[in-house]
């Protein structure tokens, strides 16, 4: 076994991949954009689309939230802060009793602590929390990573529709509420 054959073969593989990257359409037609043949993505200029289920950021549909605190309790590192109060809404019918309703005063998620596990989205019994694949919310200051309910509500329009399931599945496709 000589030193040469394996090394030459390895160099050949590397060179072939290199050529494919620089000349994706053959050696006679050089492509100006370097990222055509490359697998890397030139990030700020072009973006990869995350999958539908990707856990990027949590969106809050405020109308559905009743401040039941289930998500705050189930969070593994307790990074959800909720405050709410009850108020009496006028009755639906004439002469009825006033209804007791829950209003949300504060709903904060501290993304500097969040582990992106998705337990809060899963335990929410009223479908007020959703995952959005949006990922660009880094901040220069760590305190700005605390998203309040207005900011969490803004993510709501980025929430994709739930995908259909593979054949053989018995799960029901949920719907994203529209405001």
């Amino acid at each position, binding site marked *: 076994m000589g030193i040469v054959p394996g090394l030459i073969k390895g160099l050949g593989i590397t060179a072939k991949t290199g050529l494919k990257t620089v000349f994706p359409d053959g050696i006679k037609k050089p492509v100006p954009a370097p990222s055509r043949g490359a697998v890397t993505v030139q990030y700020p200029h072009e973006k990869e689309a995350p*999958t539908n289920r990707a*856990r990027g950021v949590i969106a809050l549909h405020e109308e559905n939230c009743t401040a039941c605190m289930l998500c705050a309790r*189930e969070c593994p590192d307790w990074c959800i802060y909720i405050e709410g109060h009850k108020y009496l809404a006028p009755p639906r019918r004439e002469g009825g009793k006033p209804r007791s309703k829950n209003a949300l005063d504060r709903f904060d998620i501290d993304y500097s602590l969040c*582990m992106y*596990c998705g*337990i809060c989205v899963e335990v929410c019994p009223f479908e007020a929390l959703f995952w959005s694949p949006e990922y660009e919310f880094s901040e220069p200051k760590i305190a700005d990573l605390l998203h309040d309910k207005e900011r969490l509500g803004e993510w709501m329009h980025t929430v994709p529709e739930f995908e*259909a*399931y593979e054949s053989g599945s*018995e799960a029901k496709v949920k719907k994203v509420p529209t405001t």
Partner: protein
Amino acid sequence: MTATAGSEREQLAYIAAKAADSRVNVELETEGMTLNIGPQHPATHGTLRIVAKLDGEQVISADPVMGYMHRGYEKLTEVRTYPQVTTLINRIDWLGSFANEVPFILAAEKLMEVEAPPRAVWIRTILFEMSRIANNLLGLGDMAAQLGAVTPVFYAFRDREYVLNQVEAVTGGRFHPNFDRIGGLKDDIPAGWIASTKDSMIKMRQAADELESLVFGNEIFTTRTRGIGIIPAEVALEYGMSGSNLRGSGVDWDLRRDSPWGLAYDQADWKVWTHPDGDSYSRAWVRLQEMREGTYIVDQLLDSLPSGPVMAKVPRIIKVPEGEAWVETENPLGAMGYYIVSKGDLVPFRVKIRSASFNNIAIVPWVLKGVYVPDIISILASLYFILGDIDR
């Protein structure tokens, strides 16, 4: 003893030579050097420190010092409810994190006497095997990088994305799926996933072939790994090694085949790969074969995926009845097990995590004794441990 005059003279000469030798040794008393490999070193996959005492180029003793990344997961699980625990234990072996959840969930299911529906078991096994493929691929690329080959590690990172994209498409997380639940899975697979996974498995087989010709056909790689760091089967068993490292020593022991409880490995036709040599090369070779075998397992299980629900009937608030359970599975790095003690509470009373890398690096003092300094890297890379798996 028949002493003749000639031999007497020879004896005297021998003694004189010995005395001279010892005098020289006293004069040139060589002092051992202590070399700290790590805690920050690319060869340690994190923050493992290896204190190596050297005599020239040879290692006299090497002691792994661990605990730089200890996160206290065994203690943290005692104050987390069962669904919260899977979030934490995802982060033990971060390259094959879905595999970490499975033994814990299986142990909790054993205590609760819940059985996951077949579709959930199948998907679990598929994702389990995909995490093995991703893990082994990166391990091989990383090993080549540590031995001086720059290209394979980039190819490994590139090709691993095909698996991770599939994992993300179904679980929502590339590295921390948090997809396993007591009694089944969080969700079913999305439409079109089976076809795209089959495509990615074809790409993984191509990646395995490419890696084989690029790394295993390379003469430099072969010279640096063949006959280096030989661990005989008995020693490997005594030190409690498991996984590809044990099979690289020729021990035919695989929990996927030997105790497939809770997973669907017995439903596929596959082979346990072993290599009789026990050196660095054989460990890497077994890893490559297992990666390729994993793609076949995934293909077969995708074909036979049963229909039905993915979640058994479990209460919304999970309370695990009193008792103890121990479940061990064959994770990418080796045998990983969870011993759960429950007092019938919302949280486990005690969780003992047996992770593979902790036992796999126990052999480091034995195997590094007497080797040359450049071989340390080759041996450590072939043992392929992940620090999160050691320190927990």
